[in-house]
């Protein structure tokens, strides 16, 4: 009664037509038969995929640079930014002769994202100073065991010869921002 929005429920005595059920049944039957000829909402998944927004946030990728070296330096900013605490990593120092593998002196020897915890908010991507982690338009597939949802570097880092294009997801504002080479972020 405080909000004046409460409704008084009245349980009325049914009249004759309501009591013989038939009009209601015919009404219901008409509704269902109409639905039979409606457009179906099912998407036959593996063959057809649901249309998604251009900025849709799906499974993560750890990018490599142009030469094929991993961009991630295990700074941990993504893990700090993550509201679901889904990211863990272990940092390691680059040895001699590994310059082709890792871009900078420090790299992530272990990098794990728990896909069951992840809420796909994209804060890790925003936090990353090295443009290493991006969310892509890929869907995280289902699995049978909880362990299998903890994605390690084997699943996250893109293959050297199968690069994953993330430019589609960048909004015009971001691409504009990236053009300014003088800003420290873009160096």
């Amino acid at each position: 009664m405080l909000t004046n929005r409460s409704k008084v429920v009245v349980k009325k005595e049914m009249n004759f037509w309501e009591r013989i059920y038939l009009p209601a049944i015919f009404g219901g039957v008409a509704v269902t038969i109409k639905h039979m000829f409606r457009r179906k909402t099912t998407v036959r998944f593996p063959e057809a995929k649901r249309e998604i927004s251009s900025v849709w946030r799906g499974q993560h990728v750890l990018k490599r640079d142009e030469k094929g070296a991993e961009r991630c330096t295990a700074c941990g900013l993504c893990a700090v930014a993550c509201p679901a605490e889904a990211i863990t990593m272990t940092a390691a120092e680059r040895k001699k002769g590994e310059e082709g593998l890792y871009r900078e002196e420090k790299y992530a020897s272990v990098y794990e994202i728990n896909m069951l915890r992840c809420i796909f908010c994209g804060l890790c991507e925003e936090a990353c100073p090295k443009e290493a982690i991006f969310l892509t338009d890929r869907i995280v597939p289902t699995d049978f065991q909880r362990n299998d949802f903890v994605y390690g570097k084997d699943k996250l880092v893109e293959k050297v010869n199968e690069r994953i294009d993330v430019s589609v997801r960048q909004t015009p504002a971001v691409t504009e921002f990236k053009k300014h080479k003088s800003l420290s972020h873009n160096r």
Partner: protein
Amino acid sequence: MIAFLTYKIILVLVIFTITLAVAAYSTYAERKVAAFMQDRIGPDRAGPFGIFQPLADGLKFIYKEEIIPNVSNKLLFIVGPCVAMLTALMAGVLIPWGDTVTIGGIAYSLQIADLNVGILYVFGVVSIGVYGIMIGGWSSNNKFSLLGAIRASAQMISYEIAMGLAIIALILMTGTLSLKEISLQQAGGVGSHWTMWNVVYQPLGFLIFIVCAFAECNRTPFDLPECETELVGGYHTEYSSMKLGFYLFAEYINMFVSSAVISTLYFGGFNFPFMNDLGLTQNWITILGAIALFAKVLFFVFFFMWIRWTIPRFRYDQLMNLGWKGLIPLAILNIGLTGFFTLWLGHK
């Protein structure tokens, strides 16, 4: 004698196969109809449009682990689904699928057996059908199964009365119990020899009959014996593998047979409009008639599914009120009206 036996055996085998095939594909149709009414597509993985789905389901049923509960009554546990299946198949014997086909001067009837107590036989077999459910539910030694069985028996007995009274009104009008004769009386339909289907004369009786048929087949809105929300799985809670398959299969066969009985009694059986005006030979009329009856039966099977995916389940007291306080007085009224009009109009 030998020729007669071969003809009967072939007929039995054909009708048996058709019944089983229709029952198998009813499971597929049920899922498809449900899906379409809910704006989905339904099973479409096994073969084109999923038409091999019944085979896959059947294989699954056969290969599933067979569990017989330790505390159950083992013999009756096995007898239950057998009785359900047996009675479901027995009722189909009397359906007249057509008049006669003359091959080589001998007239072959498309009906396995024309008993002169026809409809009463069907009725008797249907009333036996409840034993399958009761035995299965009791022998499982599970309270939910037992409750399901008890509900089934109470429901089926209550609705059998109204069903019988609805049939009595029809028999008053037709003056015969034989399904074949009832079919023949409705011959013609629209076209020359204006004889209407019985549904025109017996709309109330038809309505009562079809509601009772829903209840006898344990179909929604009367599927309280297997009401999931209250009874887990009802009388077949403890069943697994092909025994569960038998119960589910029996339900679809029952549906097929009751659709056939409804079409025969009220919708002209194997007769179709303009059948006497097309100038066809007797054999062609019979074959087209069989197809017409099949189409009618399929429509009613669809109607069963249509209702199932439209109307929610009744509450148990509503079910009993509808049966005893609604349908039985209506059926008695119907008998009275039919008797009055039969005398007044001198019909038959």
